[in-house]
């Protein structure tokens, strides 16, 4: 039952020319740069007490509005004499933590709902998609702000508000991927071989559809950090005096002519965080395309 070949030759059909398909490298440029940058940000936030001795909430009106480079205050002080560097670092603790954690439950809820509604279709799918349509009719920031207002101040409200609004994006992405994947022949083969549905969903579909959701979660973290910062700027975020980049920008806004850096510096912090996550997202896409 061998293919017709000359005697004394092996069957070369089987991988004698190992295809030098470019091995998908674990890390590529953008991914590595993004991970390092984000890692440094997280490290700085965790090690805040080691980097500066200053207390981010300690007021000292005699030291108010010092310019960057002052003795003992590398990045200067705000109008209450609080150290800007310390506030930036401790602000990172709040903003990064809330930003990353706020994405976890939307990710899980949206992925599960998208997987189930895409696979089974029917009335459940219709219901989920109707709710999705309703939620996406609202601009993200508007609904989050309105919900935080209704729920009252505090980080708990922020988590809940972002979860209530954020899951729809994941549900949409995952459902779309599932609709494509479930008609791919590998999914048909799994069904034809009689594997149970839960196994097909978890073992065959999920690993193939979840990547898009992971890539999206990178920009979603940016979005949720933007939401927290915006809430802080509007005075609806983490209550003072806890430092937060958004409230720092708001504080600094009134000294724009004389001390522009007070509003500018926390903004740069957000921009750099966004850059790091965008690089990670781009890197992940590039890695996926290589496959």
């Amino acid at each position, binding site marked *: 039952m061998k293919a017709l070949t000359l005697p004394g030759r092996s069957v070369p059909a089987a991988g004698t020319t190992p295809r030098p398909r470019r091995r998908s490298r674990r890390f590529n440029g953008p991914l590595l740069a993004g991970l390092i940058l984000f890692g440094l940000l997280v490290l700085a936030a965790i090690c805040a007490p080691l980097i500066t001795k200053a207390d981010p909430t300690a007021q000292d009106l005699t030291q108010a509005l010092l310019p960057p480079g002052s003795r003992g205050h590398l990045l200067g002080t705000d109008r209450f004499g609080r150290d800007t560097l310390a506030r930036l670092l401790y602000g990172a603790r709040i903003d990064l933590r809330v930003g990353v954690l706020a994405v976890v439950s939307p990710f899980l809820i949206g992925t599960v709902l998208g997987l189930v509604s895409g696979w089974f279709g029917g009335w459940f799918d219709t219901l989920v998609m*109707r*709710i999705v*349509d*309703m*939620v*996406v*009719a*609202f*601009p*993200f*920031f*508007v*609904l989050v*702000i*309105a*919900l935080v*207002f*209704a*729920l*009252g101040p505090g980080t708990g409200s922020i988590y809940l508000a972002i979860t209530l609004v954020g899951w729809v994006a994941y549900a949409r992405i995952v459902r779309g991927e599932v609709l494509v994947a479930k008609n791919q022949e590998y999914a048909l083969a799994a069904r034809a071989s009689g594997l149970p549905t839960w196994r097909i969903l978890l073992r065959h579909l999920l690993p193939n559809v979840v990547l898009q959701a992971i890539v999206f979660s990178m*920009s979603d973290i*940016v979005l949720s*950090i*933007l939401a927290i*910062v*915006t809430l802080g*700027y*509007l*005075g*609806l975020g983490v209550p003072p005096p806890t430092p937060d980049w*958004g409230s720092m*920008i708001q504080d600094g*806004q009134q000294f*724009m*002519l004389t001390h*522009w850096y007070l*509003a*500018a510096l*926390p*903004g740069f912090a*957000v*921009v*750099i*965080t*966004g*850059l790091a*996550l*965008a*690089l990670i997202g*781009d890197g992940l896409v590039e890695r996926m395309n290589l496959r």
Partner: protein
Amino acid sequence: MGFVLYIGRRLLAAVPVLFGTTLIVFFMIHLVPGDPAVTLLGTHATPQAVAALHAQMGLDQPVWRQYLDFLGRLLHGDLGHSFFYQSSVTSLILGRISATLWLILAGAIFAVLVSVPLAVWAASRRGGLADHVIRTVPLLGLGMPAFWLGIMLILLFALKLGLFPVSGYGTTFAQHVQGIILPGLTVALALTPILVRSLRTSMINVLGSDYITTARAKGIGAGRTIAGHALRNAAVSSVTVLGVNIAYLVGSTLVVERVFSLPGVGTQMIDAIFNRDFPVVQGVTMFFAVMVVAVNLLTDVAHAGLDPRVRLS
């Protein structure tokens, strides 16, 4: 015929969505922890005031009854009464609507004027220096808070260069135009990074597609190929990309109005939040949803006008 039917279909599809948004807006009040009336009035409110508010908000009725009332009033254009002002929410919104519409329009125009040329430029010089710059610089902008960008633009253009007013909207048309440029630019630039990146991808798809090769094979000249074949297809994908992101643009007007002290609906919502003026917050939230649905319908119309395939589906 196909066109009319398609638009009719889209209009019909918008009805349940709008209906659904009223559900969300209505149930917002039930998210308020504890007794909404107490929370809204503060803990030292008199029992009489709480009871009066209960009656006014209809909180003494069963939930389905409250919703039907809400819906019924909504159908008559009645969004309730402000707690803070002696005025209906509808008239408050109508009084502020023009600045917001202006801002959305200016933002959308600026967004197109900035992103489309950049995307076309990057796509036509694929792999070149311009492409690399246009691809990487927006990465810096993805995490840029719109309000912060606004502050920075004020700092540069209004305070340092004195080209535009720092804030406000004036009273005359000329002042309106002058006052809307910086906020419009802010709204647009906040969206540009996302827009440029997805537009670039779709432009590359258009320029690399087989029908462009067919057109080139005809030997009708590069200019004619671009004008006759690339542009309209590029417009189709631009409209699609814009439609996907328009909700983000509409949403960012909320904070940007605040930064530039524009007398728009967004500023009103934030004022209402600080005044704990629940009906106004609800009303404005609803207004924003209607705006998004309306803008989406407009993009659908534009899409159907540009692309004959859409009308068929």
